[in-house]
């Protein structure tokens, strides 16, 4: 049996009294320290957690490239419960109020903890998929991270254009037939504030195309 060429460590932090969140830090034996890749999953209601197919593919691609990578979780996704309440109910409430501030704050805290564990790196790059693309942008604004790669950003439900701050290098990847990320709206985002990469894929979920989207995202993350 082949021995994996990288190791993984589960890290947890308390984000509020009685509420902790975990993440997975993966690292090759002798990691390149030019980048730390932090991966943001999709919305929990849409199958978003650190076991998501695209998240796993980007994580594996980053480690295969010799870099350290972190898969974040959001509150409640590991246990299905946030305190005594169903996690999906809490997320539905956040969705109804379009207020995910605690999620971005959680993510910023997780990134700080990941950096402590990873040690010095030249640059942190966020890679977010679907809702994770928006969470990555918001968390970048809170952490000073300047490079964000967004896969299939849900342009119809989140104000991406408002979050493309000066000094931020954002790249968005998507296919032409993604109902959550209409290609026309994505092309409309392109310009001085961000660039786009169009992929030949079926829809929003990249089923069977995971290695391809992961390679494309990593290529942008390492630019």
């Amino acid at each position, binding site marked *: 049996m082949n021995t994996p060429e990288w190791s993984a460590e589960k890290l947890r932090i308390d984000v509020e009294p009685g509420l902790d969140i975990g993440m997975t830090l993966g690292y090759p034996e002798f990691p390149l320290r030019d980048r730390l890749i932090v991966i943001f999953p999709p919305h929990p*209601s849409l*199958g978003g957690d650190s076991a*998501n197919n695209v998240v796993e593919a980007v994580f594996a691609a980053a480690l295969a490239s010799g870099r350290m990578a972190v898969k974040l979780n959001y509150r409640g996704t590991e246990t*299905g419960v946030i305190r005594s309440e169903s996690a*999906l*109910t809490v997320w539905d409430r956040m969705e109804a109020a379009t207020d995910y501030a605690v999620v971005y704050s959680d993510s910023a805290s997780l990134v700080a903890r990941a950096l402590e564990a990873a040690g010095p790196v030249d640059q942190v790059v966020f890679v977010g998929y679907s809702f994770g693309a928006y969470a990555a942008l918001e968390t970048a604004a809170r952490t000073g991270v300047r490079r964000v790669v967004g896969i299939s950003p849900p342009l119809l439900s989140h104000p991406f254009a408002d979050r493309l701050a000066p000094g931020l290098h954002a790249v968005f990847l998507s296919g032409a037939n993604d*109902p959550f990320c209409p290609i026309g709206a994505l092309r409309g985002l392109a310009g001085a504030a961000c660039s786009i990469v169009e992929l030949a894929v079926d829809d929003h*979920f990249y*089923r069977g195309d995971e290695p391809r989207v992961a390679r494309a995202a990593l290529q942008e993350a390492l630019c």
Partner: protein
Amino acid sequence: MTTNCETYFTRFLASQMHRDLLDGYAGLSTTFRIAFRDTGKSWSLTLERGQIRSLASDSSNPCRVVFLVDEPVFLDLIAGRISPQNAFFQRRTDIQGNWVEGMKLARILGLFFEKHPYPGPEPEA
């Protein structure tokens, strides 16, 4: 001949009607269908306020979401051997209709299957 899948709907799931599927989902109301690709059979369900209110073997009722699945995969799902999300990501299931609602429903059904795994019909005495 009655299959395990039919027994699941007619006995097991029927016994869960008019009670909360899960705690904390009283706001859940929708219609969906499980359509078996391999046998051509379908089951339509109506959820109201987090409870199954109707359950029928048919393929004609309009539903907001249709889950397409083969019977062996469905048996793995209801036994909790695979999550609906993973089955979807592996293309072992598909969703038609309202994608967002379908993905949310898949997540909730996954929690239900986890809480109430169905090992198969009890052997007859």
